[in-house]
């Protein structure tokens, strides 16, 4: 898929230090800073955050591009703002 790597990462946010619902609030605030089509890199914890945040992103029209499990057990997501709105 061609949109996987276009543009690289435009902003980063780490939500491993907060709990629901602040996790999604921080994610939304970070996305608001971006333009549609820009990419946010999101670092989040296993468990509830990885179960719920991507689903909420999908509901709001943002597209997860990649997911990586890190050595410390957290996940690294790249998300394209408005990537599902076609």
């Amino acid at each position: 898929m061609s949109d996987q790597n276009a543009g690289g990462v435009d902003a980063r946010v780490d939500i491993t230090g907060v709990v629901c619902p602040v996790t999604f609030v921080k994610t939304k605030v970070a996305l608001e800073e971006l333009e549609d089509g820009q990419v946010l890199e999101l670092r989040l914890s296993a468990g509830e955050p990885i179960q719920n945040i991507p689903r909420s992103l999908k509901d709001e029209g943002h597209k997860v591009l990649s997911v990586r499990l890190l050595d410390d057990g957290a996940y690294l997501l790249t998300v394209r703002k408005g990537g599902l709105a076609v």
Partner: protein
Amino acid sequence: MSEIDYAALKKGGFMRQVQKDKFSMRLKVIGGQLQAEQVFRIAEVAKKYGRGYIHLTSRQGVEVPFISVGDIEVVKKELAEAGVKVSVCGPRVRTVTACQGSAVCPSGAVETTALAEELDARYFGKQMPHKFKIGVTGCRNNCLKAEENDLGIKGGIFPEWKAGACTFCGLCVAVCPVGAIALDAVAPNAGAPNVLASDKEKPSLEKSSFEKPSFEKPSSLSFDSGKCVYCGKCVRSCPSSAWQGRGGYLLSFGGMFGNEIKEGLRLIPLVFDREKVLKAADVAVRFYQEHGKAGERFGRTLMRTGADDLKRALEEAIR
């Protein structure tokens, strides 16, 4: 006054109380739902003939305590005017419970309310060797505790993967609670296969500070359907709709959660066709009626007879 027939009253939903000649009246509720008009009438009756309160039972039922034996007929009549019926107790099919299912709940994998009504229409009050409970829950979250019931029905999503739509982002691997999905990366030092897929992605990946240099873009996915628990998390989270799901019903048989505690047995795979769910329910009810001893719960019957015969009959029914 003639002798009170407690057994007949219990059968008809009037439970004897500690207080002499007072009865807790169990009302019929299907799938935990009552119309507003029914609720108003129940409230009126509780004020007029009870002590002004109702009791919510553990299985979505409503009871009005402190009904006097002499008021039973008039109470039944007043309730009937608003479409409220009394329930049952004793060795028969009890209240069919249900969550709100896919009609209301975002987690719901299947419709539950109409199914509960259909099950109620078929089996409610039917004479059995012992109590027989049916519960319907819309998804794996299992709010209605399907496996506690003699017949439990639980919604599930059977996922199907469409290779063409997949971006191999890895989200499904991350959200799957049982590790049924794996992305297979091209090994970094395994000669030169599949360079097209990996080379294309390299520039952007190297920009990420978290990226390991050896990382290669996955190019295939494997799904172990034997491990799948039908939770649908892959389907709900997939950003490219590569995972599509089909809702189905997982049935369990012989559960109980009273004097004895036993989880219902999962004897057959996910059933997609609602008619087949009803066929399987028919088989289970008939099996228990034929093989259960008086006072023996379905789960006990299955322990005594073994579940193989029932399993075979169920497999036949859902074929």
